[in-house]
């Protein structure tokens, strides 16, 4: 299988072609303001290699920070009609109640709350008020709203209120982009509703962006289906991703860690990605990043997105070196490395200058750093090594030693031996690990539900079956599915040994025509 992976970062757009289990070619292009231009340039650069064009490409996978930037910067968002199903509960905490006011003012179109929803055990909470939903839909239509977010109490247990309401809304607004909360999240109405509102606010941008991605690919001459990578290191078909842009928020960091796993062939390890300004540290379990616990804030809004648990520190190849090597970072020359660092004729001592002086790196003009005091070199590297060691330990959850995979352009700052680490692994193409991660993404399915009146083993088995059904529906090859996470939490005060079970499975993308 031949796949192109593209990572659209803040500075560079990287593209790689992977055939089977090998990286064939990798290229870098400057990221452009419209995102699409950089992708087209990268694809055209890749297409100049005969081994790239010799055979058809099966799939293109893009990872982008475009959608999260839109929310964080409050740009390109459309207004949303918010429909909450669950009165009389929560009447004093309506949709948008915990949003930053400026962002809420941009997104809030109309708000409606109606009776309905379920209890934790699946019993109806209140009868669904269909007349009130129809009235709300007419109000949304009259206001000219084209995007609607629907959230019902305990929809992850029983989504029927949300799906029925979505049908009523589509009757009133035939071309509406409708987001139902149960498609995005877990238990926690407010956070799940926030995700749905944010998703609906990105409806127009997502449609335009995915259309532009497809245009760029068509223009490059490729004829391959387009996938968008998600926060959890898996992909969705572009047509599906277009409807759920929030699920691709954190894909850049995830792709980098997944790429590190692929390039090294190691599934359980610590990963350190040293860039120019910052270093991200995370942990791979079964080839996937460990996820952050609980609530994640995006643009000041609480959500429950599946995001990798990352520690970012101010250390990179462009970090300022001060105090004779005793202080490194967090300030950095960033993308001005090639004009401000000593090795490029500048006047700022950076970690890259020290690495060149130490013979760890071949970059720029090494005669410009010949006069640096060897004691300063030693202290700088000792400081950088201490920062790496301390922060890798912070992120490590096992006492047993693990390998550490070092990727990114500043990986020379990672020492050969680190406490608690069995070995430091460096890989070819490590500077394009993020695009590699996009190219190898898989398809996942997840379930998070309360089970009652059955043993733990039966509950986990039932949850696994449901997760597998979701993965196949999302485009996975059923024969390749494996369970990568099982978590169960007994629920206090609920009778019948209630158990909340979360299961996640992943599989390879089903071959074209099979899905």
């Amino acid at each position: 299988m031949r796949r192109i992976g593209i990572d659209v970062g803040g500075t560079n757009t990287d593209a790689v072609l992977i055939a089977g289990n090998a990286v064939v070619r990798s290229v870098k292009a400057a990221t452009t303001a419209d995102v699409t231009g950089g992708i087209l340039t990268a694809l055209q650069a890749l297409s100049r290699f005969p081994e790239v064009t010799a055979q058809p490409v099966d799939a293109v996978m893009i990872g982008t920070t475009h959608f999260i930037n839109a929310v964080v910067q409050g740009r390109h968002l459309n207004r949303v009609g918010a429909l909450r199903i669950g009165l009389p509960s929560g009447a004093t905490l309506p949709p948008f109640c915990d949003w930053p006011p400026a962002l809420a003012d941009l997104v809030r179109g109309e708000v409606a709350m109606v009776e309905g929803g379920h209890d934790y055990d699946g019993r109806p909470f209140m009868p669904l008020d269909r007349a009130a939903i129809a009235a709300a839909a007419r109000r949304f239509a009259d206001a000219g709203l084209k995007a609607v977010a629907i959230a019902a109490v305990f929809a992850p247990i029983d989504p029927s209120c949300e799906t029925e309401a979505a049908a009523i809304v589509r009757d009133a607004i035939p071309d509406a982009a409708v987001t139902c909360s149960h498609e995005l999240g877990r238990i926690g109405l407010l956070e799940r509703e926030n995700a749905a509102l944010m998703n609906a606010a990105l409806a127009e941008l997502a449609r335009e962006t995915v259309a532009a991605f497809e245009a760029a690919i068509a223009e490059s001459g490729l004829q391959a289906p387009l996938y968008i990578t998600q926060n959890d290191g898996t992909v969705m078909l572009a047509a599906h991703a277009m409807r759920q842009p929030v699920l691709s928020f954190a894909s850049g960091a995830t792709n980098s860690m997944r790429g590190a796993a692929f390039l090294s062939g190691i599934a359980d390890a610590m990963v350190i990605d040293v860039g120019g300004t910052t270093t991200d540290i995370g942990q791979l379990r079964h080839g996937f990043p460990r996820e952050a616990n609980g609530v994640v804030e995006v643009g000041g809004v609480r959500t429950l997105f599946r995001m990798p648990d990352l520690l970012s520190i101010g250390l990179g190849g462009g970090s300022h070196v001060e105090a004779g090597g005793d202080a490194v970072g967090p300030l950095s020359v960033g993308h001005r490395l090639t004009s401000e660092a000593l090795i490029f004729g500048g006047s700022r001592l950076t970690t890259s200058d020290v690495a060149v002086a130490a013979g760890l790196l071949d970059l720029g003009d090494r005669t410009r750093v010949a006069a640096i005091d060897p004691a300063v070199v030693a202290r700088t590297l000792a400081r950088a090594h201490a920062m790496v060691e301390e922060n890798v330990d912070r992120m490590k959850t096992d006492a047993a030693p693990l390998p550490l995979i070092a990727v990114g352009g500043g990986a020379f700052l990672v020492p050969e031996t680190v406490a608690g680490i069995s070995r430091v692994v460096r890989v070819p193409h490590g500077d394009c690990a993020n695009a590699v991660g996009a190219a190898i993404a898989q398809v996942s399915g997840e379930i998070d539900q309360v089970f009652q009146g059955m043993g733990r083993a039966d509950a986990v088995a039932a949850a696994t079956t449901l997760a597998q059904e979701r993965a196949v529906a999302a485009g996975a090859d059923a024969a390749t599915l494996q369970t990568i996470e099982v978590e169960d939490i007994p629920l206090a005060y609920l009778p019948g040994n209630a158990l909340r079970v979360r299961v996640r499975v992943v599989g390879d993308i089903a071959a074209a025509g099979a899905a």
Partner: protein
Amino acid sequence: MTVTARPIPLDDIESLAIGAWILGTGGGGSPYLGLLNMRRIYADGGQVLLMDPFDLADDDDVAVVSNMGAPLVGQERLTDSRTIARAVEIMERYQGRRFRAVMSLEIGGGNAIQPLMAAAHLGIPVVDADCMGRAFPEAQMTSFAIGDLQPWPLSLADCRGEEAIVARVTTWKWMERVSRKICVEVGSVASTCKAPRTGAEVKRWGIHHTTTKAIGIGRAVREAQRRHADPIAAILEHEGGLRIFAGKVSDVARRTTEGFLRGTATIEGLDGDRGARMEIAFQNEWAVAWRDGVPVVTTPDLICVLNAVTGEAIGTETLRYGQRVAVVALPAPPVLMTPKGLEHVGPRAFGYDIEFRSVFAEPVQGQA
């Protein structure tokens, strides 16, 4: 009657939410939704007054309120600030008289905010007191029960309009059983007004000035966060607490028995505690902490497991593998440490055959 009651500024309620979650000792439910309700009430021009318990007349009637149920259900059936006020009104109708003020059952967790919501809607002040000084899982684990005060009646309301009165029970434990059954039947979340108290009872058996205490803890955490100082050191200094352990969660075993979340968390030591291991058993709240097999802190001393960086509390339901935590102990209210108090809330009340000895009674063994 003239009574000095001071308005609680909204900023103090923000601090209360953080402090109460720490005093929740792992349980009590997050105060976040209660805080959101209070922000709305204040945005609409509402305000709540806080009164000193010693300003109550002996014959004043005081409502003792709490939200009851499973925290998970509360995350979906979001608290409506008016439901807790309805529970108080049901009790007023049942008893045929009005309350002078309202107070919290437990200052630990979300129930620290419930009386503020009730007070805002009812137009009466909140008494600066509770009857746990922390959070506990059961109805008989209060200073009022330790004082053998009358356990009945109780009123209960759910947001749909279901209402119930528990008219009479023989013991506090029976109140726990009967009211828990009703709560589960209406969907495992309900607002309750417990057995009403007189001003004299609150002054004799209440745990006083705990709202102010929780606000103070929260304020210390927020100020430390703003100054980029160590918020855990700020909590310890504010409360005269002890740093017990620092480490990473290496295992959490949970099980549900008799409707409660029970289990044990294991924490592997870091920094000065490297090489040591702490195990903490819980029944909704943290109950007993062992360092390398030796019990070092037991209920009713407060065991708080905090985020090592932010100083904010982590609940027994949300504690997860890999989290970096600080374990601290805070002093318990004296009434809980009397022989009668220990019968209700000591280690044996939670099934541990351990003699209670406060970690604050003498210097901690093995600590510099």
